[in-house]
């Protein structure tokens, strides 16, 4: 894919990925065919900041985990009152990273 397009994509979407994944994402995008551009553009990513806000409000009920597609963990969190509150607090720090990992998964699945 054209380097200019890829850089444009990276600039617009860099906050959705872990910083150490950015080069990997860029390389993968560069090796993609031009015909996939529309499909990659149409992907919607989980916003880490939004998940953090949801985690602050509904973390005790596992809503943050449900939101990023971690249904199993969401149910576990819901059934344990947010891991007796401990998991809910730990997740305040982990959820942004988890959302970014999910975004990388989503992109990888879309371009394979």
């Amino acid at each position, binding site marked *: 894919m054209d380097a200019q397009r890829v850089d444009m994509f990276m600039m617009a979407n860099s906050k959705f990925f872990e910083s150490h994944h950015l080069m990997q994402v860029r390389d993968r995008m560069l090796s993609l065919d031009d015909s996939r551009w529309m499909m990659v553009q149409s992907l919607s990513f989980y916003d880490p900041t939004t998940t953090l806000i949801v985690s602050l409000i509904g973390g*005790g*009920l596992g809503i943050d985990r449900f939101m990023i*597609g*971690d*249904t*199993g*963990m969401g*149910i*576990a969190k*819901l*059934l*344990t*009152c*947010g*891991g*007796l*509150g401990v998991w*809910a*607090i730990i997740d305040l720090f982990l959820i942004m990273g988890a959302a970014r990992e999910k975004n990388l998964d989503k992109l990888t699945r879309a371009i394979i």
Partner: protein
Amino acid sequence: MNPGMRQVYFYLILLGFAGYLWIGWVYFNIESNREPLVGCLIKSVTGLPCPSCGTTRSVIHLVSGDFIGSLKTNPLGVISFTALLFVPFWAFWDVSMGQIGLFRLYRKAEILFRKPVVFIPFIALMLLNWVWGISKGL
């Protein structure tokens, strides 16, 4: 085993271990007639029970053989008790034997719970259980 699988197994084993520790600690407190513990952050802050409040009491009823008492406290306790009986040991077995049986079940359950036919009744039941819990004053 890829990093995603390892993370799921890590969480399941940790949760199981924490669950046994918590039940043991609460049981010990009841036996020695100390103040009952409130483990729920939502209940401690707002005073209102969360949808899963009463699960510990329900599991303790089950451990003492009182199935009806357990259902009356919070039916989610039965699910937690069953999960606690099987999941940590199965996870431990899978990790030590290098198998992924539990992970496959976990993924299937996740896919199932993403279907509206399953998750809408699940949320409705959780809400009903919550309303029941609040009206009981858990």
